[in-house]
């Protein structure tokens, strides 16, 4: 086996280091080696968005990122979103709007929506739909997801 690569990264604000193979995706290392299974896998080829997370603030499909690439970068996953006592407004609004049925797409949608609201705190419905088009949900028909994101945007604006 080829030599393993030493990676130093920040995961949800904590310094983390790991060894990985060059062929391992960030998604695989997070889920299988580090035990961060909140990021989901739906396709492993960049088509479903279930594995969405942020690397240095940029929204990525983690199945398309090699684990070795995040050396020196900050990785933010769904596990780091809520504070100990409180859900993030997006998480809260997803619950209130029943924007999840099976919930497998939910971490990806929430991470993608978070990245959207950082760029565009007041998106229109069309802008939400355009941004989230890389995330597949097979259960909800998207209606309640879009409403949850729009409502979260409003709540976050109001409290900002």
């Amino acid at each position, binding site marked *: 086996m080829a030599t393993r690569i030493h990676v130093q990264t920040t995961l949800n604000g904590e310094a983390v280091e790991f060894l990985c193979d060059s062929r391992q995706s960030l998604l695989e290392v997070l889920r299988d080696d580090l035990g961060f299974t909140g990021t989901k896998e739906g396709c492993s*080829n960049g088509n*479903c968005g279930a594995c969405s997370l942020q690397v240095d603030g940029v929204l990525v499909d983690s199945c398309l990122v090699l684990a070795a690439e995040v050396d020196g970068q900050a990785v933010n996953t*769904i596990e780091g979103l809520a504070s100990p006592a409180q859900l993030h407004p997006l998480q809260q609004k997803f619950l209130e709007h*029943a924007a999840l*049925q099976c919930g497998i797409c939910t971490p990806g949608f929430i991470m993608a929506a978070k990245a959207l609201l950082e760029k565009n705190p007041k998106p229109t419905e069309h802008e939400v739909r355009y941004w989230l088009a890389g995330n597949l*949900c097979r259960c909800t*028909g998207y209606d309640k997801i879009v409403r949850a994101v729009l409502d979260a945007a409003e709540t976050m604006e109001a409290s900002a």
Partner: protein
Amino acid sequence: MAEATAYQVIGTRPVRPDGADKVTGRAIYGADVRMAGMLHGKVLRSPHAHARIKSIDTSKAEALPGVKAVVTHKDLPEAPDKIANLGEGAVNLKFLSNNVLAQEKALYRGHAIAAVAAVNVHVAEEAVNLIEVEYDILPSVLTAPEAMEDGAPILHDGMTTTSLGEKTDRESNVASHYRFTLGDVAEGFKQADLIIEREFDTATVHQGYIEPHNATAMWNEEGHVTIWTSTQGAFVVQKQSSEVLGIPVSQVSVIPAEIGGGFGGKIPVYLEPVAALLSRKTGQAVKLVMSRTEEFESTGPTPGSRLNVKMGATKDGRVVAAEASLAFEAGAFPGSPVGPGGMCIFSPYSFPNMQVDGYDVVVNKPKTTAYRAPGATNAAFASETIMDEFAEQLGIDPLQLRVMNGAKEGDRRVDGPTHPRIGFLETVHAALEHEHYNTPLEGPNRGRGVASGFWFNVGLQSSVVINVNSDGTVSLVEGSTDIGGTRASIAMQAAEVLGIPYESVRPTVAGTDGVGYTDVTGGSRTTFATGYAAYEAANDVVRQMKERLAERWNAETEEGATALTAEDVTYSGGVFGCSKDAGKSVSFQEMAELMPRTGGPISGRATVQPRGVGGAFATHIVDVEVDPDTGKVSILRYTAVQDVGKAIHPSYVEGQIQGGVTQGVGWALNEAYLYREDGNMSNASFLDYRMPTCLDLPMIDTVLVEVPNPGHPFGVRGVGEVPIVPPPAAVANAIYRATGQRMTDLPMSPGYVLDKMQS
């Protein structure tokens, strides 16, 4: 009944109990399961659509460092050629076993041939590529019409058609043929002024749940197998696995993980027995997870179909005869949903003369499995298109035509049953009155379509236990895996009966060792049947509390007074009272505290098999715009009206409808298995198998019509499946109004629509 009742909990929209864990990534889905020392597996799959397996050489794979075991069909016991009821209907065990690991023949591209367990998934993948299989490639056949032709390649040597219940001696790919008849269609057609006959083709489509199939199994030293998996039914996995592995059900425990969508596709076992075999060989837990390509090539799908439908109507819009011949692809093994298709095709209506012939046809594609109202969507595409043609040609509003022909209580379905109290006409009237239908659609290349649909729903079996806590809260244990908020809808029904807040009921989904037998989450049955069990179990709690209070109060009264019985104890609004003594009053919480002094813990339990299943009807309205240059169809507006019986948690009812509509729109416009000449699928990825994204859709308006189901204490009807039934027909009818062209094939992709427009 239910309409008049003021409910405390039912009809509200609380946050689901499993919500926080699901929005934070904490909930454990099947692929998240991890065991100490766990090995990872990979399945070798056939690259050919149809081939005889001459030999399998696993020696090189076994020699690869890191590989712990390899299994093939030889590791499975010989499966008997017998039919067993495995919870989703009858299954031939030999076929089930052969689908899990191919025995003599690979019958479709993606058919499992062998599997490897290794230290990690990459080594397992490398090992799979080292397995040498010698195939004799055979000609393949991919569609029902081709498979029914004389001289078509035969999939199963010796398989003959069972026709109208009789075995024939003709070797064929047609596994069975049935006929439903009501009245006399030949006579009916004589009365018709207008007869329309068309042939329709629908493509094979996939359930498309986002979470791939997974299974982790541990076969311990005592021969006991534990399986962790994402499934619609733990007990069904237990039963199927025990049959395939040839061990008693008591030796198989199934622990259901959270499940990332199913839609019917997570009922059959694929990986579970394989993971178990690999675990037996290695003595370690083994996990298998499918790739998306494997999902498309080896699981699901729902059948492609050829439908020939002929209907006749009088000038004034009375449909007097309807006849259908349905040929459904079963996939590699018999068992398509052609039966349900025939049960549903004409059932929104009270046509006097009907006949349906159904053919279950094996083809070299993965074995089909249930997909949301299985069979009904294919069927409605044909019948609802012809209904629209009648309306147009007879100059009648299409919804009024449905009013004139709509089924009511007491009308018979073609397959025999008589409709109980149903709400079909109520859905049509609600659509007629809806602002959407009454707002003119303006602009070029636009059209509005309507269509209706029926799904019969199922009841089956459920068990619930409610344990009372000393503080007056309860834990509720049920066996229905929660795919869309059913923990909430079941807990709400218990809370309503118990007169306690929703938050005081903590529901848990248990595995096969933790709760009584419960059938799959499917058939739109969970809120209906498991909810019914929760209702009964809650009543059992109340009954026990009443008995205890009667006894306790008797002990307090002086000698000689007439003894109170449980009947004298009343319960309402969370407080027990006494019909014979207005001074007595004990709250649910106080009674809970009294448990240790009145006989110990209280557990209510119920097992149910409710028969009063209320059928579900839907009527949809859709506006589309067709791009005249490309044939691309955009959905401008969508309204789905449905009789939901009683909406326990309206948000999740709306969600079921919105999700079903979206899947139906995908089926209508984009989704299809595309095959190359050699029988290999050419679009086995989410990039090329195009499911709707949120950019493809507007908001989906829902109208919940509540005609209570008399077969359920709160009037619940199953709601999950019927919303997928009308969309393809509704969209096709809208495209017609926009373009003047009738669509007869699914999907109505841009190329297809453009061809029609230019023809």
